[in-house]
C-alpha cells in the first residue's frame, strides 16, 4: 500500500464519516462538525484529482464561508440543542430496505461500470484553463448562473424580510 492510497482512504473515510454524522447525529452542533469533516475530505479529494482551483474554492467558500455561517447561526440561536423533534423517523423498515437496495446498486455501478479513465497528471496550475473556459466555451452557463444568483438572492430577501407569524 503506497502513501497516496493511504491518503485517499483517509480522506474518503473523513468524508463518509462526516456525511453520516451530519445525517445521524442528534446534536446539531456535532452535525455541523461532521459537515466540516465532510467538506475538508472532499476538498482533499479535489487536490488528489489535481483540481487545485476547485479545492481552494471549496476551502474558501464552503469551509471558510458557509460552514462558519452555519456555526454562527447555531451558536446565536438560543435553545437549539433542546429542540423537540416533531417528525420522528417513520417507516424505518422501508427506509432501511431502500437504503440497502440503493447503496448496493450504486456500489455495483461504481465498481463495475466502465468509467472513462484519464491519465493522472501532476498538479499543474489549472486557473488559466478555468478562466479561459468560463469566458469561452462555458460563457453562457457562467452568465446564466449570475442571473440565477441575482434572482434567487432577491427572492430570498423578499420572503425573509417579514417574519412568518404563527397562526394562533
Amino acid at each position: 500500500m503506497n502513501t497516496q492510497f493511504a491518503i485517499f482512504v483517509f480522506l474518503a473515510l473523513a468524508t463518509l464519516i462526516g456525511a453520516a454524522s451530519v445525517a445521524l447525529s442528534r446534536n446539531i452542533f456535532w452535525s455541523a462538525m461532521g459537515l466540516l469533516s465532510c467538506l475538508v475530505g472532499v476538498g482533499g479529494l479535489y487536490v488528489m484529482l489535481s483540481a487545485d482551483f476547485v479545492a481552494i474554492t471549496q476551502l474558501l467558500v464552503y469551509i471558510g464561508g458557509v460552514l462558519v455561517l452555519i456555526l454562527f447561526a447555531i451558536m446565536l440561536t438560543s435553545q437549539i440543542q433542546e429542540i423537540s423533534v416533531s417528525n420522528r423517523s417513520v417507516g424505518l423498515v422501508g427506509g432501511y430496505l431502500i437504503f440497502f437496495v440503493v447503496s448496493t446498486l450504486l456500489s455495483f455501478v461504481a465498481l463495475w461500470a466502465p468509467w472513462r479513465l484519464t491519465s493522472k497528471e501532476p498538479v499543474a496550475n489549472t486557473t488559466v484553463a478555468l478562466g479561459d473556459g468560463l469566458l469561452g466555451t462555458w460563457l453562457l452557463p457562467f452568465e446564466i448562473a449570475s442571473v440565477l444568483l441575482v434572482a434567487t438572492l432577491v427572492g430570498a430577501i423578499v420572503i425573509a424580510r417579514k417574519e412568518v407569524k404563527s397562526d394562533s
Partner: protein
Amino acid sequence: MTITQFNIASASWFRPELALTAGILLLFLLDVLVRKQSRYRVAVLTVAALACVGVAAALLAFQPVESRAMFNGMIASDPFATFWKWLFLGAAALTVLIAARSDEFPSPRIGVFYALLLSVVLGMFLMATSLDLLMLYLAIEMVSLPSYAIAGYKPGDRRAAEASLKYVIYGGVASGIMLFGLSYIYGLVGSTNLTALGVRLESLAAPASAGGQLGLRVALMVAVIFVLCGIGYKIAAVPWHMWCPDVYEGAPTPFVAFLSVGPKAAGFALAVRVFYSFLASGGGPEGFARGLADVPWPAVVGVLSAVTMTLGNLSALHQNNLKRLLAYSSISHAGYALMGLAAASQLGVQSVMIYMLVYLVMNLGAFLAVIAIAQATGSETIADCNGLSRRHPLLAVTFAVFLFSLTGLPPLAGFVGKWYLFVAVLSHYAGDGGAWYVTLAVIAALNTAISLYYYVRIIRAMFIEAPAGELVVRPRVSYQIMLGTFSAALLLFGVWWNPLIEWTQASLTFLTRG
C-alpha cells in the same frame, strides 16, 4: 471561427433571452424607484412587465427559422424551441395580467414578483433549448429557485411558508438526484453535449468482460432513471408529485396558475430533447424505441403515464378544496401528456405540443375562475361554488367550459388535444407491443371517465345547488374579459383545429444529434 467569435455571433440569435434578462434587471430597479405609496405603482410595474414580454415576443418573431447550435453547443435555436418560447411568453403575459388585478400580491411586493416571474420564464426558455447537461441543470434550477421564493410569497401565512419549504426540500432532493445521474453519464462518456452523447454512447467500446457489460447497462439504467427524477419532478409525474397539492394550496393562486402550465410545459420540452437525443439510439423520435441499455424506455414512460393519470385522478375524487383538486387534476394531465412521449414518434411529439398548448388556455382559465370565486367568498372550496350560475352566470358558464375542456369533451379544444394523444398511441396497435399501447389507451379512456366525475361535482354545485346567503359575486372587468376570451378560444379551436396542427407540424424540426 474562434470560440469568442462564435459566442458573439450566437448573441444575435439570443435576443429574446437578452430582452428578458434586461427586463428582470429593469423590474428590480423600477421596484425600488417607483414610490411604495404611489397610486400608479401597480399600473406602472404591470405595464413595464408586459412591455418586457412584448419586446421579447417581437424579437422572437424575427428569430430565424433554421436550426443552429449556439454558444458552443450549449443551447439550440430551432423551430421546436421557438414554439415553446411562444407558449411560455403567452403564459407569462397572461399571468402578469391576472396577478395585476389579484388581491394576493400587495402593491409593495408586486414588482419583485414580476421580476422573479420573468426569471422563471428565462429559465423555461433555456430548458426548452438546452443541448448540454450543464445548461440543462442550470435551466431547471433557474425555473425552480425563484419559484420556491414566490411559493412562500404571502407574508405571515403559515400555509405559504409550508408550501415554500416543502417545495424547496422536494426540489432540492430531486435536482440532487438528477445531478448525480448526470455525473454518471459524464463519467461514462466524457462529454456533456446532448447532441454528442447519443453517438458516443453507441460507440462506447463494449468492455470485454461480462461483468463490464452488465456494469455498463446498470450504470446507464441508474443514470437515466436519476435524470428522469429531475424531469418527473418538474412535470409533477407520479412518484415525484407529492409537493404538488401542498404547494398549489399555499402559493399565491395567480402564480399557481402559471406553475401548473409553464414549468410543466418546459419539463415536457426538455423531456423531448433528452429522450430523443441520447436515449434515441438511431436519432429521431423513432430511434428512442430501440432503447439504450436494452431497456424499452417508451414502455417505462408508458407505465409512468398510466400510474400518473390514475393516481392523480383517484386522489382528486375526494378533494373539496378547488386548488387541491386542480393540483391533482394537473398531475393527471401530466399523465395524459406522457402518453405522447410513450408513443415515441413524430406524431407523439406533436400531440404533446398540441396538448400543452390547449392545456395552457384551459388550466389558466380554470384557475382564473377559482381566483374570481375566492375574491368574492374569501375561500376556495367546492361549496363556495354553490349557486354560482344564479349569482354570476358568465363566471359559472365559462368555468364549466374550462372543466368540460379539461375532461376532453367535444366540441372543446381539450377534446382535440386528447384526440391527438390517443391517435399517437393507437397508431402503434399493429406494431411491436401493440397490445400494450392499446392497454394504455384504454386506461386513459377510463381515466377520462373518472375525471368527468370530479369535474362535474363542481359544475353540479354551480348550477344545481342553492346559493348560501346573499353574496354578491362581481369579478373584475379584466377577469371577465379574459374568462370570455379563453372560453371563446377553446370553443373556436375545438371546431377549427387546423391552425394548431399546422403550427405544431411546422415546429417539429429540432436538433437531436450532431
